């Protein structure tokens, strides 16, 4: 068990290294540090000296992967890649290209992201489970059919429509919530209502259909027939047997998402002007702030790997057959 998780942790290192190599290659393939300096400095202060100074300030004066000027191991270590990778692994994200402290920014913006993402996950799970369970119970009936139609229709609507429609209907027409924005503390409640409702609705159709399929798959299994042969009532068969078995894939599917909740939802945050990590990332991308993007990609990959490990752990807890070796 412990061995398994230690091995998974060690396996994360080459993955994160790979991710770093990829992001570096992507950026430096087409964007030279000179380009970045020009972009950050703006047109007015643009002198060759200023560019050089900016590069030195942000560490971009060194070669990316291979320092031919050095000898021995330092050819590899005295490089931009090595330096920033080791710092990433120490969770020291340094300064953004625009000069702000990334660690502080992330710490500050994580809160709003979670305030939106956690309710979305929980409310969404509750709604989808209730709906799909009810409909699996009624499988084959007219209600099941129309629920299926509704789900497909809900899946076919663009997420943008949910957002725009929600803002227009709930905020502009009914004045139930502000169109966008964010406040700290309890005041945030007013602001999170709309994004949560919209995000839950946008993903509901797909989850309900998936969960329903899982429930029906379990219903077709032999142990369900056995449970009925024992004389259990429909409700006991459903909750005592089917639900518990179907919950395994559902829970593990949810668990893998939990770590990435920290990153927030890019589009939702951008639309509702929520100062979370999602909008942080988008702002950084639009400003071509490589340091921030690099940090976010690293963080995202790390959380993904953590999600995989959590999934394994949840399997271990939920399913007695699973042993990790």
């Amino acid at each position, binding site marked *: 068990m412990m061995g398994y998780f230690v091995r998974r942790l060690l396996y994360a290192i080459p993955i994160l290294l790979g991710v770093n190599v990829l992001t570096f290659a992507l950026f430096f393939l087409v964007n030279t540090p000179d380009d970045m300096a020009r972009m950050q400095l703006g047109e007015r202060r643009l002198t060759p000296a200023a560019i050089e100074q900016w590069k030195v300030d942000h560490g971009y004066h060194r070669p990316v992967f291979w320092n031919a000027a050095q000898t021995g191991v330092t050819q590899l270590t005295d490089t931009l890649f090595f330096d920033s990778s080791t710092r990433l692994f120490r969770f020291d994200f340094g300064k953004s290209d625009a000069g702000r402290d990334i660690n502080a920014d992330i710490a500050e913006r994580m809160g709003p992201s979670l305030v939106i993402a956690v309710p979305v996950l929980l409310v969404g799970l509750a709604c989808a489970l209730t709906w799909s369970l009810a409909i699996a119970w009624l499988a084959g009936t007219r209600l099941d059919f129309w629920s299926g139609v509704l789900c497909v229709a809900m899946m076919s609507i663009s997420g943008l429509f949910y957002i725009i429609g929600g803002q227009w209907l709930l905020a502009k027409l009914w004045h139930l919530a502000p169109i966008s924005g964010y406040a700290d503390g309890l005041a945030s409640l007013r602001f999170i209502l709309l994004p949560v409702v919209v995000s839950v609705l946008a993903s509901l159709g797909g989850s309900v259909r998936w969960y329903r399929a899982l429930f029906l798959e379990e219903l077709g299994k032999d142990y369900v027939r*056995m449970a*009925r*042969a024992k*004389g259990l*009532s429909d409700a006991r068969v459903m909750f005592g*047997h089917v639900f518990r078995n179907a919950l395994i894939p559902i829970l593990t599917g949810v668990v893998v998402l939990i770590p990435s909740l920290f990153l927030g939802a890019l589009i939702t945050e951008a639309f509702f002007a929520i100062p979370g990590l999602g909008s942080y990332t988008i702002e950084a991308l639009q400003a071509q702030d490589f340091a921030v993007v690099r940090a976010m990609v690293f963080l995202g990959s790390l959380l993904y790997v953590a999600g995989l490990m959590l999934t394994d752990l949840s399997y271990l807890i939920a399913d007695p057959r699973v042993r990790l070796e």
Partner: protein
Amino acid sequence: MSDRLLQIDQLSVHIGDQPVIENLSLKLKRGETLVLAGESGSGKSLTALSIARLLPAAAQVRAGQITLGDTALFPLTEREMTKVRGARIGYIFQEPQLALNPVMTVGDQIGEVLACHLKLRGKARQQRVIGALAAVGIPDPERRAGEYPHQFSGGMKQRVMIAIALAGEPELLIADEPTTALDVTVQAQVLALLKAEQQRRGMGMLFITHDLGVAWQVADHLAVMQAGRVVENAPRDRFYAAPEHPYSRTLFAALPKLEPQAHTAPVVHDQPLLEVRNLAIHFPIRRGLLKRTVASVKAVNGVSFTLQAGETLAVVGESGSGKTTMGRGILRLLDLTDGQVLHRGDDLRQLSSEALRIRRRELQMIFQDPFAAMNPRMLVNEILQEGMLAQGIGGSAAQRDARVRELLVQVGLKAEHALRYPHEFSGGQRQRLCIARALAVEPRMVVCDEPTSALDVSVQAQILELLEELQQRLGIAYLFITHNLGVVARIAHRVAVMHQGVIVEQGPVNDVLFAPRHPYTQALLAAVPRIEA
């Protein structure tokens, strides 16, 4: 209270518009066992399911009624029916692996019945659960009640299912092929347990099986089903003495019997076709941080034997004895750990991969499940030509086509079957196709891995006949892997008995089967359900 327990009158069940059970009537007395026998698809299981009203959604009862004691079952509401299931009817399914809920402890699965029907709670229930487990012969029931189904072996799982079925103290026990998934020695134990419990409790039992040998062991009465109808219904002794219906008689005739048979022994050459020396196949178990090999499963652990040209050597053993692994290892379909496989004097382990590839032409294989053994996306023609193409034999395309037609006729199919897909054939026909595929490269030796186990008895006999005929005509040697001792007696020249990765006894078939020396062979033979009429 009359002694009639179960009465089925004029039952008809349809799936879609297709009748699957027609006008079926049966009676069962209290304390008696009625065996429903028949081949797959005859409607045995559906009959049992309609008693408990557990038919799949696609199946519809069109007519008839079923009475349990004095209760007509069909008019009951679903709610009333839940009080019948489990409490008055106990049900045992074929696959203990699938019928137990994998995420619920065994104790809870039994306790559920007690809670539901006997309203037992807490300690009293726990006591009963442990008692029930002990009654079906599960050692250390206190501890095992808290374990999950995957921690039990197949036979133990079936015992758990029996405990569940008996927990509600039913009047009627329905056992649907309860021993088919089990090894023969375990089968004997489970049958004995069922019979004992039935007699002790005075229950009626409806026992479904395809095996007339098993039927003999448990039956008071026997009903033979064919295509949704009961064709013969008689007391056991009368049935076994003189089956009346022609279909019953074909079932009898097809039954492989464990009797000495006269085999002409093949000529012994100086150099055997195949010689296996100290063959070992181990699968490593890797653990820990660096995935070091900490132990290994010794699937095959030092096996030696020879096989002459034109000879049949049967390898007998229960599941997990390593016989299938050995068969695959000999053909080098998996890596060998140790030992030698000498084919015509050459060690197959020493051959280069290309030399081995060419040598494969002489060593072929037939699989247990003819449904899985052919690529569903290829035409029969392509399947049969694949080996010829790989080996570069068979000449031009037209010659190969001609050869395919010839092969099809040789295995008892028609030449025009070449342009069909495997799914268009029945199980027996598919097994013939697999045989033809192996024959296409003109092998000298074929490993037959349980080639008849997935087939109905009547089809089994035909396939065995075909294999024998091919051997006589083409002089092919068979390494015949099976668990069915009746089949061995019929087809083998020599037998090797495998147990836990080693051969415990080998020799001429009549010696091993009728004068076994090793205790394991003796136990194995004693467990075979025999008809002593």
